[in-house]
């Protein structure tokens, strides 16, 4: 299941809902992305705004969730991604994967979050003490996604 929303989410409630009544799940991996202030590396962050491409975002998230379910034997999966303005400490993204075996849950969770960081159509604008700017893509994130050998649709 995927959701793209402006509102915050409750990780515990999301996990409970995903697992409700399921007795074959042995492990649930989850990742929560949080707005981070990084005062050691630049001016203090006041807020950030995530812009997205409505429609395309949902399609891409559905496609990558499907791919995770093809690669790993999962019982359930969930991606919740927020857009809009958020402050340091706010939750941005939630990935939950449930599987009979822990390895499938852990690996697919990592796969999905690596993908989301590089390939999902979101753009981050930061508001700092020094003003506003669009965040540049980081080569490090591309390396993390590339290790999964996901064929990019962009040439």
């Amino acid at each position, binding site marked *: 299941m995927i959701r793209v929303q402006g509102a915050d989410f409750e990780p515990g409630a999301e996990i409970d809902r995903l697992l409700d009544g399921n007795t074959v799940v042995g492990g649930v991996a989850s990742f929560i992305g949080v707005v981070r202030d990084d005062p050691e590396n630049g001016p203090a962050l006041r807020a950030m705004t995530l812009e997205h*491409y409505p429609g395309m975002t949902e399609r891409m998230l559905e496609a990558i969730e499907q791919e995770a379910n093809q690669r790993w034997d999962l019982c359930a999966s969930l991606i919740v991604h927020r857009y809009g303005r958020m402050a340091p400490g706010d939750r941005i993204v939630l990935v939950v994967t449930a599987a009979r075996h822990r390895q499938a849950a852990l690996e697919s969770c990592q796969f999905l979050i690596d993908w989301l960081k590089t390939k999902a159509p979101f*753009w981050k604008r930061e508001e700092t003490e020094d003003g506003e700017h669009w965040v540049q893509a980081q080569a490090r994130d591309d390396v993390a996604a590339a290790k999964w050998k996901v064929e990019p649709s962009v*040439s």
Partner: protein
Amino acid sequence: MEVLYFAWVRDRVGTAREHVNPPNTVTTVGELAQWLATQSREHAEAFRDCDVLRAAVNQEHVSFAHPVATGDEIAFFPPMTGG
């Protein structure tokens, strides 16, 4: 064609969305980008560094060689920085 802009591409063009009618000679995403760049000083600025731009046609990631046709939704945006 509907053309959508995101992030700093939108900031530079000055609009999030516009309806355009390029000439028949515009048959690919790359040719559309070149033609858009001639439409205003703002468009020229937005498409100056075409190499860093990404594009989608009808909400699918595509290369600049991808064909475009009347009725398509074409988007231009910088590399993703989400999540």
